[in-house]
């Protein structure tokens, strides 16, 4: 069965970005030891930090940093038809709390590195445009610069402490529509307290869907999908089992409080079914009847798309993560057709013609 993996994390080192940076940006890394600071209080959870222990390279380089190893361990062994790269969110230009000039330079360098070392080296791999969204004009320039690359399928926005529905960011969505790019959102910083940290990592990982719910709610009630009718949103790495609740809750609120957001003209659940898709990972262990019940409550089997999250510790196996004995038609949708429908550029197989 063909398989489109909607969340693969390739990793860059700052050193690898140097050839793609002009001065003075380069010297801030070489001379001033620039790196994007995080405030992680805990070691990340599993045997090898944030990564699968068996995904670290034999020579010690971090997981996700070598195409050959990724091909062997992931793409070839699972028979991937396509894989969509989402970066390691380090650096994460849209999460920088200032110095947007540096963030913009890093985003451009990252995109050039991604195109040269991944997208143009393996026909199966597709990419995400990295931008510094805090400066929408500069972000639009970057989308104009690389957005027409035939293998760039989405613009990546991290789930951090910004809600992306605000009209301030709408120029980015306008540029996305123009270049047939979708929006991909991936959580980055801790999902609770927005900008603060839970006491334990286990809280963070449990509550990832809540940060996704914030974004979906904000985007829909901000009228993003009314204003940009061809725009679609892939919610990456939050799972999908929360979606039936959110649909029902939003529809109820809309029924009662529509007057506050008169630019919203459809039931939120309809907008979700038409404009959103949700990657599967990290999956809870579900029985078949439980999965089917969730899909029934979503009112669609076309808005879920399988993802592995390779090479991270909470990787989901395409063979083992979903319950066994699913109907072939459903498996085809989950493993490839839904992603193929979602990303129009996948239809073209990376070709620029036609």
């Amino acid at each position, binding site marked *: 069965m063909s398989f489109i993996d909607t969340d693969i994390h390739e990793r860059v080192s700052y050193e690898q970005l140097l050839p793609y940076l002009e001065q003075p940006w380069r010297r801030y890394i070489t001379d001033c030891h620039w790196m994007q600071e995080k405030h992680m209080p805990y070691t990340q*959870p*599993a*045997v*090898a930090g944030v990564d*699968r*222990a*068996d995904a670290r390279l034999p020579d010690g380089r971090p997981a996700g940093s070598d195409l050959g190893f990724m091909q062997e361990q992931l793409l070839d062994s699972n028979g991937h038809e396509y894989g969509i790269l989402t970066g390691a969110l380090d650096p994460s230009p849209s999460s920088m709390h200032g110095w947007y000039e540096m963030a913009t330079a890093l985003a451009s360098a990252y995109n050039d590195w991604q195109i040269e070392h991944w997208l143009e080296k393996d026909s199966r791999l597709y990419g995400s445009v990295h931008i510094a969204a805090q400066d929408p004009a500069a972000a639009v320039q970057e989308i104009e610069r690389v957005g027409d690359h035939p293998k760039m399928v989405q613009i990546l926005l991290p789930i951090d402490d910004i809600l992306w529905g605000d009209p301030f960011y709408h120029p980015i969505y306008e540029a996305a529509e123009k270049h047939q790019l979708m929006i991909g959102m991936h959580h980055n910083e801790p999902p609770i307290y927005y900008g603060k940290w839970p006491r334990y990592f286990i809280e963070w990982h449990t509550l990832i869907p809540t940060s996704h719910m914030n974004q979906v709610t904000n985007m829909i009630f901000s009228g993003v999908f009314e204003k940009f009718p061809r725009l679609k949103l892939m919610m990456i790495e939050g799972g999908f089992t929360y979606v039936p609740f959110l649909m029902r809750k939003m529809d109820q609120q809309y029924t009662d409080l529509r007057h506050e957001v008169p630019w919203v003209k459809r039931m939120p659940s309809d907008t979700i079914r038409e404009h959103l898709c949700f990657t599967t990972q990290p999956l809870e*262990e579900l029985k078949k009847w439980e999965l089917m019940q969730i899909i029934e409550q979503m009112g669609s089997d076309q808005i879920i798309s399988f993802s592995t999250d390779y090479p991270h*510790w*909470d*990787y*989901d*196996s395409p*063979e*083992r*993560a979903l319950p066994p004995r699913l109907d072939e038609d459903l498996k085809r949708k989950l493993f490839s057709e839904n992603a193929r429908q979602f990303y129009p550029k996948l239809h073209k197989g990376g070709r620029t013609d036609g």
Partner: protein
Amino acid sequence: MDKVVAHTDDLAPGEMMEAEFDGRSVVICRASDGDFHAFTNLCPHQGAPLSKGKLCGAPEPTDEIGTYNYKNEGNILRCPWHGREFNIKDSGRMLANERQKLREYKLSVEELSVADGNIILYK
């Protein structure tokens, strides 16, 4: 059937290795007391290769919030993917859910000399 899968001096206490038995991948673990244990090399969750994980210890359950008592060094097998913990001295039982166990293989050590011997798996 029985088969020699490793030698005792292949592993120090707290180490593990992959081996093949009956056409399947198994993981041979040497516990901190020097004893050997063998399990299927597939995590029952999603099939990760356990031999790529870690033999370590684990904090035992505590009644005090914020208290960590790290015990069992070398006896807890943690999966290389999702980090699930299995106690090799307790039939491969999972720490978080005692209803789940790894499949354990019968094993014996045939002494060849004072220094080393053959580790034999039985079915």
